[in-house]
């Protein structure tokens, strides 16, 4: 249960677990992409997932908001508890789940609509706001994504006219507009230049205070920089998980050390 935030010592108690994953396995047809993953992701912090290509980290990330459901021939076993409720139970409304757990993708994918309509898409379909309220919501989301100043005069322009970094921040604003609890990021900076990358990392740091963030990244420096805890995946298994500082300076597992020091991957 989350601790009472009014208690005087609340900032000292350990943050609660947002996700608890138990024995998660995932199959694409016959191929097993995830093998019995167990871990806990704490709320309101940044957790990084690292590992070489094909190790399952993206598959794991997508399991957290059931995006893997859209793949033909996919099978999931095990449990993923979001605030103590297993999201893989049959009665769970996937649509509501995805509102709470949002996702940013590797390549920015704004809709072929105006900036405003992009942000408004989520609130419109979920019925969150209309008219003036909607305008305010769009502005709030863009401000939270540190994009408002740059696009406030261009709200009716096509989202595709923005630069790569701006488009990615737009995608972040778009998901913030539906008021999620969790933001999943799948290598969000890999298609961006260093300056845009830096801005997104700054953004992540600001968002950390209100949202739980899980980021998959190839960039170990980035993981070390921004995250509080890190998990190392290899061959579909979670090899090691713990405070980032420890993982990157004295990892416990031989394989983690080999990856970190660049011996493979």
């Amino acid at each position, binding site marked *: 249960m989350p601790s009472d935030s009014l208690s005087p010592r609340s900032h000292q108690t350990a943050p609660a677990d947002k996700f608890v994953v138990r024995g998660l396995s995932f199959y694409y047809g016959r191929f097993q992409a995830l093998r019995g993953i167990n871990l806990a992701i704490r709320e309101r912090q940044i957790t990084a997932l690292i590992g070489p290509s094909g190790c399952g980290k993206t598959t794991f990330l997508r399991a957290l908001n059931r995006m893997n459901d859209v793949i033909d021939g996919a099978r999931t076993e095990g449990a993923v508890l979001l605030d103590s409720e297993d999201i893989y139970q049959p009665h769970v409304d996937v649509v*509501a*789940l995805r509102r709470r757990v949002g996702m940013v993708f590797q390549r920015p994918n704004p809709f072929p609509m105006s900036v405003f309509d992009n942000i408004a898409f989520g609130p419109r379909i*979920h019925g969150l706001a209309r008219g003036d309220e909607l305008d305010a919501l769009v502005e709030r989301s863009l401000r939270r994504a540190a994009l408002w100043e740059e696009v406030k005069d261009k709200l009716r322009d096509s989202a595709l006219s923005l630069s790569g970094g701006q488009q990615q921040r737009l995608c972040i604003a778009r998901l913030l507009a539906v008021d999620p609890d969790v933001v999943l990021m799948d290598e969000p900076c890999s298609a961006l230049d260093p300056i845009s990358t830096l801005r997104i990392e700054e953004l992540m740091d600001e968002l950390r205070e209100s949202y739980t963030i899980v980021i998959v990244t190839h960039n170990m420096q980035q993981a070390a920089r921004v995250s509080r805890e890190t998990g190392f995946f290899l061959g579909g298994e979670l090899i090691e998980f713990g405070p980032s500082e420890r993982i990157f300076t004295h990892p416990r597992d031989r394989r983690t050390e080999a990856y970190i020091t660049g011996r493979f991957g």
Partner: protein
Amino acid sequence: MTSPLARHRPLPRRTRRLLANGLMWAGTTLCAAAALVPLGFLLYYVAAQGLPAINLAFFTHLPAPVGEPGGGMANAIVGTLILIGLASLLGLPVGILGGIYLAEFGGNRLGGAIRFSADVLSGVPSIVIGIFVYALVVVPMHRFSALAGGVALGIMMIPTVMRTSEELIRLVPTSLREAALALGATHPRTVFKVVLLAARAGVITGVLLAIARIAGETAPLLFTAFGSGLWSTQLDQPIASLPVQVFTYAISPYQDWQAQAWAGALVLVTIVLILSAAARYATRGRMRTVI
């Protein structure tokens, strides 16, 4: 702000969204079914009406004199075959060699112009092509003729054959070409002996597709080959063809002829569908041409 995950406590909005989703599923499935219904109807009627009128006489006899029962469409069937042959004499060389040009050298402006013209040509209504060939061939010759019909159909073949040839020749891997060139083959030899050989299955099916199309065409023949009730294989005389014969019989007031029209339609549909289906099946997934 957390919202309940459980679906068993739906808000009105959620059910509305799910309802809309479900309606879409139902609606589009219905549309797909509705799209297939006419095909079913069509094939059913053609078979039901045509089969009773099909007999040996249909394939071997000439049309009986007006009003008399019996007779067949032997001359029309042979006529169609002759017309297809003539059309191929025009359509295949232009189409295939033109397609080769486009595939091998066609990246320039001229190639663009050729492709554009072929596209325009494929959009010209078949009756307009018939009129064109009337002015071009029938008028100077002072008569309708099989030749004119062949020219009209040949012109119609060109865009299809050119397009499929170009696509399939392009699909032949460069490594094959380079292997031939490295052995000292000239460009033309490479194309004719190696590339065409590799692409031949596709090119042939492209040709079959084109033939399937023109076999059923009536409009361009109305004022070129014109049609005939007699046995005729001379190229400079009018010639009967299956589609035109079906048309003539269909609009006639005689029951017997109308029944034979269905039979003719059945034969046409069978040939055309088999050719089309085979051609489409053979090139499935490999070509991106649509219809």
